[in-house]
């Protein structure tokens, strides 16, 4: 055994070479890994290309015109009216209502968990909020239609609140987005260095003063990012509005009246067997592209804010 080893060593020494050897296995694997990494670029290109192409076809169809789409307030495909405003206002309505719920509550939860709750309470509450975040949105849709809407109709009167309405969809969407905002905000709050809190406490600040006047301002950009991500999520949220907000575009600002959002419209239109190259088919691509651009811009802004925020503390 020992002899063998010595022999091997001798052999090795006599042919020693430090030159780079081709390692085909390594190269192939590296190529595959690179492909996996690059694949995500294909997805983005696919989205931009497919949505862009069909959206272009949409605007080339007879009777469709970009200017009219952006300026008129009727979306009636069967009579060739494609004004995006009714879809846009209801998307805005649901988003606004959702954020009116999710921002204050989400911030409240985050401040409570990060500044007030003792560790034991925090470690029980956080999983509960995670459950809330993990429930599929169709279940929230069911909740909106069978719980929130009857509740609203009970409160405001059955003749005021329609069976489908943006209010109930927006409120439930707020509950859906609450855990998203609270967990991102909490991350931002707990990234504020402990020494800052100590400084404030040592100056005789109360817990509230430390939380609201020192910690929250220091985490402001992280909180802003959380809010923007929340908005982007609300704009793209689909099943709640598809179930509860109403079928049929409707140019209204009343939260008690049914009105279809962009996403709700896409779902309803594609629910049947959509035939290729029909005007409906092309219109969902145009709407999809519109959604993609809005959410992309929002996400990019939020990431830029987060990056700057990190630089401050790292």
């Amino acid at each position, binding site marked *: 055994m020992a002899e063998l080893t010595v022999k091997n060593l001798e052999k090795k020494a006599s042919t020693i070479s430090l030159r780079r050897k081709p390692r085909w296995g390594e190269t192939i694997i590296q190529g595959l890994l690179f492909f996996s990494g690059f*694949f*995500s670029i294909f997805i983005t290109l696919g*989205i931009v290309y497919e949505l862009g192409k069909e959206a272009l076809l949409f605007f080339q169809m007879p009777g469709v015109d970009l200017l009219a789409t952006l300026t008129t307030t009727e979306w009636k495909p069967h009579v060739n009216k494609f004004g995006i405003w009714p879809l846009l206002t209801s998307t805005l309505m649901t988003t606004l209502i959702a954020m009116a719920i999710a921002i204050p509550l989400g911030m409240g939860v985050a401040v409570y968990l990060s500044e007030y709750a003792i560790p034991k309470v925090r470690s029980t509450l956080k999983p509960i909020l995670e459950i809330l975040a993990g429930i599929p949105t169709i279940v929230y849709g069911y909740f909106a239609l069978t719980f929130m809407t009857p509740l609203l109709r009970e409160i405001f009167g059955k003749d005021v609140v329609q069976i489908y309405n943006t209010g109930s969809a927006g409120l439930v969407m707020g509950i859906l987005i609450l855990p998203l905002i609270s967990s991102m905000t909490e991350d931002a709050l707990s990234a504020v260095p402990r020494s800052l809190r100590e400084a404030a406490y040592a100056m005789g600040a109360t817990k509230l003063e430390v939380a609201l006047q020192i910690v929250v301002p220091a985490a402001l950009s992280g909180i802003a990012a959380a809010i923007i991500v929340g908005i982007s999520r609300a704009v793209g949220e689909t099943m709640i509005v598809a179930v509860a907000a109403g079928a049929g575009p409707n140019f209204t600002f009343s939260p008690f009246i049914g009105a279809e959002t962009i996403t709700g419209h896409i779902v309803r239109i594609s629910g049947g067997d959509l035939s290729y190259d029909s005007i409906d088919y092309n219109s969902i691509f145009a709407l*999809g592209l519109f959604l993609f651009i809005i959410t992309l811009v929002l996400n990019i802004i939020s990431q830029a804010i987060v990056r700057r925020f990190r630089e401050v503390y790292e």
Partner: protein
Amino acid sequence: MKEIAIVQGFENNLDSRNRKGIIWHVLFQASTIVGIIALIALMLNVIDSAFGYVAYEARMDPDSLTVDGIPVEDQSKDQLVALLQSTLSSGAYNKLDNETLFVDRSREEVFQLVVERIIRPKIVQVWKFWPSLTRSDEIRATVTREYPKAELDFVSWLTYDFVTRPQTSEPLTAGVRTAVLGSLWTILFTILLAFPLGVGAAIYLEEYASENWFNRIIQTNINNLAGVPSIVYGILGLAIFVRALERFTSGKMFGIVNLTSENGRTVLSAGLTLGLLVLPIIIINAQEAIRAVPRSLRNASFGVGATKWQTVWSHMLPNALPGILTGTILAISRAIGETAPLVVVGASTAISFDPSSPFSKFTTLPIQIYQWTSRPQEEFRSLAAASILVLLVLLLSLNASAVLLRNRFSRRF
């Protein structure tokens, strides 16, 4: 001391500060409680619809089926088969016999057929769980007054049979087997696409990619894709998998002629669409898991002359795997709950046969919930509630396994 403070221009304001502190503390706590109440309300609302009284009328009076004084529910299997044979048209009877021979069916199954095909109960009214508990006398009175021929039963919409029965249009006999199988088939292709690509991309970004503009673009792109609304993926799937790759996704390319679906709206298309949707999430989670493996381990491996891939394969991956799997499971549970993209890709509304190949038409559990929720009748809401419970149990067990996995392996370093 107070006197000194006032001289200095400071006011003793501690009481009001503390009062304010308490008010806000209550507000913060209340926000948290609101969140928890919402969760409880959501669960109770589902449970409320999933159980309760049902009043139904038989289209054919079971009493008229009594033979020799034996009521139909006590008859033997042979008697029931004879009953089916004499009542159904011979075509319908033979079709049933062809599906599964009557000799191979159990008595329970045959009895089920008798109920479905001959007695055919029709729901006249349903009540939710809470009223069923608190106002049962009133409900009984209503039924005897308004539907004198109706039976009143307390039913659980969620039963073992509900999970194992195929979908039908009759609420009392509908089940979610078709939808559950559809979900599982779909997820299979989601995993096949997203897991290898996702883990590969994460390894590339964490271990191979150098810090340059190109790799930064890849990383930024992945982060952005994670924020794209799911419905946009549905539209992409419609354009790419359903339409452009129709020959592949419908199975024509492989010479498979599927009677049920001649277009690309198949399980395969749905799975691949969801695969694209969860890919960025899997990548981000896997990156985190890989980053958690200490640098020193890699250095140790490089230090004994291992190549990069040897290091990744035998040191980094085994240690990162629990984390990667946990992240993947969480991404998969997101995919299982997705509805919107599948509606766009073209989930079928009413199919009652189980998916049997990648090229089958499909429905999934969330789609089924969506459809039933959209029906105005109360009984379909109850079916939706029962399927929500099935879906939540499925997701809960997935999440539980992720947590177990994490706890089991997390104390490595």
